[in-house]
């Protein structure tokens, strides 16, 4: 019997059509737009200026504080501009634009495909490399990894959970990564485990709709006492940090507390791979794997892309664009990330970023919202909420702007997984309003 989390959740069709497509290297784009705001926390501060020539892997922006991460050049060439450019949602973000010239890598970066599973660095060295080479969480939120690995006072981690749940429908990038680079992922995980402490137990959580990935990781971990694989029953949002800890360990993260307070730290398998590359190959986080997919099977790709590649180029290569620069016929929406939590792309010229895990194409019919009706108090949202909130109540409070009551009803526990909106038979924009209320309350608090 596979494990799963205990409260709420939904079962959308997984639609992982691209799971048998091997990862291809995406060609180096002519021009990259590297955003300074690719991670949670303070935006990075550029250290290059217009006209500088840079090599692949060169530092182009320094972290601005502890909760921040450095950014490295993903191509070699000349810096064309350092200015605000619209990102994929059309908002202006300070961006370093590089015109590509050749593919010159910085010295010291090991580009050979040979797998180095032997760990020679001390935990301190590993930690230093993780923070210097710009590793961030690749599960979606892009939280700087070194911050997560820094021990907090009074909280001793007991478990490191590698998140291979990939509960978002459509996405297959983590799955392909485990299949093709399982050894590297495990090595990266082992390195993070050593940073946290030698007595920490490593667990890999994978949903049982990916039996091949479970088999691969089980085989690789068979010799290790400190590692085990936990198959999980398919259910969304299993990959949410709090849900994963619940599913794997049966421990619930208290409201307002950090997940580490239960003794568990969650890292994505993509992050583990990035850690491997950073420590063993000296390679900063300049590339990641993304899935380009749609439900009519015409476009199914898994690409390893360079950070800052314009979305338009990726879609053109995948065959989703017309010659006149518009999206091909049936498609109406591009989602950056998974369909449940990803953001829709408003500007096709915007770049993909470190933590981009997929570009999902939808037709209007699949994704267009229906007109909202009246709440019939069916409590389906309440049953679906994995944080045991009352979305219908929060929605009404948000409409009334009742900040006090919202907080009393734990609006900040909301993980924005979208289960409420997904299951609402009246098509009410529950999450829209709740998310807005959260943002407004946060802003008011900062004041």
């Amino acid at each position, binding site marked *: 019997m596979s494990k799963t989390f205990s409260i709420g959740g939904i079962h959308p069709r997984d639609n992982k059509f691209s799971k048998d497509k091997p990862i291809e290297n995406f060609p180096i784009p002519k021009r990259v737009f590297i955003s300074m705001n690719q991670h949670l926390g303070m935006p990075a501060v550029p250290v290059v200026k217009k006209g500088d020539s840079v090599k692949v892997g060169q530092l182009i922006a320094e972290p601005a504080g502890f909760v921040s991460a450095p950014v490295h050049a993903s191509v070699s060439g000349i810096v064309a501009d350092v200015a605000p450019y619209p990102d994929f949602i059309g908002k202006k973000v300070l961006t370093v634009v590089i015109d590509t010239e050749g593919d010159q890598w910085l010295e010291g970066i090991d580009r050979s495909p040979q797998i180095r599973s032997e760990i020679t660095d001390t935990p301190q060295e590993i930690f230093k490399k993780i923070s210097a080479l710009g590793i961030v969480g690749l599960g979606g939120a892009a939280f700087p990894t070194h911050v997560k690995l820094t021990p907090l006072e009074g909280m001793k981690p007991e478990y490191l959970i590698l998140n291979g749940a990939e509960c978002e429908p459509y996405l297959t990038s983590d799955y392909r990564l485990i299949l093709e680079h399982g050894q590297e992922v495990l090595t990266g995980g082992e390195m993070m485990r050593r940073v946290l402490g030698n007595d920490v137990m490593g667990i890999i959580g994978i949903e049982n709709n990916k039996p091949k990935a479970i088999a691969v990781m089980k085989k690789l971990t068979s010799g290790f006492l400190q590692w085990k694989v936990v198959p999980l029953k398919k259910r969304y949002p299993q990959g949410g940090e709090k849900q994963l800890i619940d599913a794997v360990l049966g421990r619930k993260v*208290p409201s307002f507390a950090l997940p580490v307070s239960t003794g568990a730290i969650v890292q994505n398998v993509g992050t583990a791979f990035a850690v491997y590359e950073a420590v063993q190959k000296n390679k900063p986080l300049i590339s990641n794997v993304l899935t380009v997919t749609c439900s009519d099977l015409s476009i199914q790709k898994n690409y390893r892309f360079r950070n800052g590649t314009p979305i338009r180029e990726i879609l053109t290569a995948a065959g989703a664009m017309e010659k006149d620069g518009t999206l091909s*016929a049936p498609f109406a929406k591009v989602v950056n990330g998974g369909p449940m939590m990803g953001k829709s792309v408003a500007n096709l010229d915007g770049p993909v970023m470190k933590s981009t895990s997929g570009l999902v194409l939808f037709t209007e019919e699949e*994704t267009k919202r229906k007109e909202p009706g009246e709440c019939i*108090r069916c409590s389906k949202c309440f049953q679906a909420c994995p944080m*045991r909130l009352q979305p219908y109540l929060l929605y009404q409070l948000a409409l009334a702007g009742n900040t006090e009551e919202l907080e009393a009803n734990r609006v900040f526990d909301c993980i924005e997984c979208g289960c409420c909106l997904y299951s609402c038979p009246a098509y009410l924009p529950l999450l829209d309003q709740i998310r807005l209320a959260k943002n407004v309350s946060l802003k008011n608090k900062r004041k």
Partner: protein
Amino acid sequence: MDKLLVSPAPHLHSKDSTRRIMRDVIIALIPAVLVSVYFAGLSALLVIIVSVTGCVLVEHLIARYLMKKRTTVYDLSAVVTGLILALNLPASSPWWMVLIGCVVAIGIAKMTFGGLGHNLFNPALVARVFLLISFPVQMTNWSVTNSIFRPDRWELPKGLLGAQGQLLDAASGATPLGIIKEGLANGLTMETLSQQHDFSYWHMLFGRIDGSLGEASVVAILLGFAYLLIRKVIKPVIPLSIIVTVAVFAGILWLIDPSMNADPLFHLLTGGLLLGAVFMATDYTTSPMSPLGMLIFGIGIGIITMIIRIWGVYPEGVSFAILFMNAVVPLLNKIKPLPYQKEVSRG
């Protein structure tokens, strides 16, 4: 597409809709409707047709001309109300009485509060109780004299089930609950009553019992219940808590004095208990949202039903019990779910 669609996450929907839910409820009601038509004949069909058309029409007129908005009949909730109202009426109901019921159900109990999702009380039940108080004679006349199929149709189940009893007295047409209420009040015991009347559980299960349309067959209602559960339209909490409460309540009384109290199975199978528990107490809008609230709601209905059945004036109390508990729902909805942290369990 030259223009991109942009919307906040999530970008997928379960395709569940109010209309689909209502359609499922209608499908679940079909067995009960068929059984009632089978046993009570054309007159039952007439009541159902008048009730459904009446409810839809009233809702359409009010939405369109009084509230001046787009008509709301396409969500099918008026059809459900109409069906449930019809199942709560005797087959001999005159058409005008059914129509009055529709106006009360939709016009007063539903639309005055703002329509679907805003009503405090179950519309069909409000109408039933209104009619019961206003037209007590018509509402308790269980005879189905105007059924044209009747004499032929009644032969089949009789032979099929091999029942010993003859037809219930169609002229007086008392329901089993009515019979024991009156009988016990007149100093008779359960034993003599069951000798005089046919209380066969087979008949109650398959529909040879006089009463309002929906009270006819327990099996038909259980079929609908199973369908609703399979389609995940309702959670089993409310119906089960009502049934268990009634069984326990009746069981205790029966153990104390079997001669003066009917056994629990009798209470479960007669009257509108199952119809109410499955289709009316589970109405989304007028039932609580949290599991604990649902449990309290169900237990409350069970207890009040039994109190009315045993000590009340009316032989049957399900409708009153549900209406009463409807009024408590806003209070029950104040029950907050346990926060995540209350369940911290380490190691």
